């Protein structure tokens, strides 16, 4: 069996992101996420640098690695040319591949993100697609968004967008040909494999946690509700 460290090292981004860390803390100092969470990119780098299997396993099973916003502000600051943001990308990939992500609350949200942004990209070509930002599931968007959502055709036309229509312009319909190409990019780059992995581990976790239908199969709608409420409980 491959060790955690081997799995991490297989990713070229680890080589790019971790030369040698002297623990100065400049990454944590500049990190926007560290201002809001109990989060310290320096200690993540130190853990990976230590090569300690147990600590790395705990890390990829934790909420910690999902707190990074991938802004990469750490990269231009590091005096040793490391990039903690890239190291975290690698930890996330290994967490997705091995199913460790289901062991933390923020990790489990991978399933929600896949269902929203992931599905949007492959089906519409957009990360954020207006019709899928349903006001009921996005209360944080407020009343104004609800009004825009209800009147989207008129509003998007008013601001000069070309919502869902053929031809040029913002929010235009992305053609089948381009969507097929996007799908091939996902297949080639390993994105599709990660999607499959996230779905399968999430289904297994849903089943294990008792979210099943009459046939004993995972009930992903119930599981989705659970994930949404799990998030709300802590707020």
């Amino acid at each position: 069996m491959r060790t955690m460290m081997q799995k991490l090292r297989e990713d070229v981004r680890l080589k790019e992101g971790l030369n040698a860390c002297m623990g100065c803390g400049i990454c944590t100092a500049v990190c926007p996420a560290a201002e809001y969470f109990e989060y310290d990119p320096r200690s993540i780098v130190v853990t990976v640098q230590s090569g300690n299997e147990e600590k790395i396993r705990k890390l990829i099973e934790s909420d910690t690695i999902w707190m990074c916003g991938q802004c990469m502000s750490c990269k231009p600051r590091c005096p040793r040319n490391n990039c903690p943001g890239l190291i975290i990308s690698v930890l996330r990939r290994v967490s997705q591949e091995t199913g460790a992500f289901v062991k933390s609350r923020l990790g489990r949200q991978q399933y929600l993100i896949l269902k929203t942004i992931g599905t949007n990209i492959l089906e519409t070509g957009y990360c954020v697609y207006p019709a899928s930002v349903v006001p009921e599931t996005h209360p944080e968007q407020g009343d104004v968004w609800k009004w825009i959502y209800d009147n989207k055709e008129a509003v998007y036309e008013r601001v000069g967008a070309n919502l869902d229509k053929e031809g040029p312009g913002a929010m235009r319909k992305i053609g089948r040909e381009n969507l097929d190409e996007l799908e091939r990019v996902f297949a080639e780059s390993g994105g599709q494999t990660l999607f499959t992995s996230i779905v399968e581990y999430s289904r297994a976790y849903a089943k294990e946690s008792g979210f099943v239908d009459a046939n004993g199969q995972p009930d992903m709608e119930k599981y989705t509700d659970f994930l949404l409420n799990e998030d709300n409980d802590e707020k």
Partner: protein
Amino acid sequence: MIDKKHIAIIGGGIAGQEAASVLTGLGYKVTILEKNERMGGMLNKWSKLFPDFSSSQLVLDAVKVATDKNLNVICNADIFSVQKENGRFKLSDNSSLDVYADAVIMSTGYNLFDATLKEEYGYGVFENVITSADFEKVHKSGEKLTTADGKAPRRVAFIHCVGSRDAKTGNTYCSKVCCITGVKQAIEVTQMWPECEVFNFYMDLRLYGSKYDALYLEAQKHHKIQFIRGRLSEVSERQGKELQLKAEDTLQGRPLRMKTDIVVLLIGMEACKQNEDLCRDNALELDENRFFKSKNIYNHRNSSTQSGVFLAGSCICPMSVNESLESARSAAMLVDKSLKVQER
């Protein structure tokens, strides 16, 4: 015959002058070539020395070479070429000056890191961000350190490793004297303003000299200076020109935000840019940090990669005043040895 041999010394700082005084003492003819108007080099910019607060003038006066019939000093001589010609060295500057010598000592010293390159620290942008060299200038003038609008600072932060140990500035080496300079200057601030809170932001405190750690103890014990282990990420200016610092207190493992009136950047030492010119017409080489490369760093530290050319002081690597003087005496003895071998 010693009195027929002529040695050229490039750089009239403390190392160059110390080497000259040893060599004239042995009876050699020596010419010091100084690029500036006056001798003394970088030490002219410093007020008090670590670790015992002696005046730098004390050292400058002590190294001043006694007027000697064998000594020739040429100022405003910006040497850019050293060539071997018929077994001797020909040194030329931009004017018509040519000096011939049997041996050469490089004592070109160092440059201070240009703090404006570290843009995120705001030097040259925010008036209350100064460098350690600026601090020395204030101290030397006899004035007290104040904010740009003349107020007494309530809080001063010293930032270590500015332009040192930083791949982003191209200087991955440690300048090694800045740590103790930070401790010294922090104490000097509290001597000026006993009520002022003083902080040092460091990565590692490299207090390598025999009496340096005692100064660190004194700083903490008697002057209540705080030491925070974390590298400064950025400085921003608030209303009223107060400064806001972002760092991590790595020993506590949490981000730290601090308001301060003045920030002092402890700028590192860099090799002189002219060193590249001085290598062009001979076998001299620079090392990976752009300082002169020694033949070997253990027992031939003062020998360059060009036979007949010797190295003294901080053109080899960052050095303190004492190390620079010792290095200069070693270089001078090596010149003597090598010329005597030639004689036989």
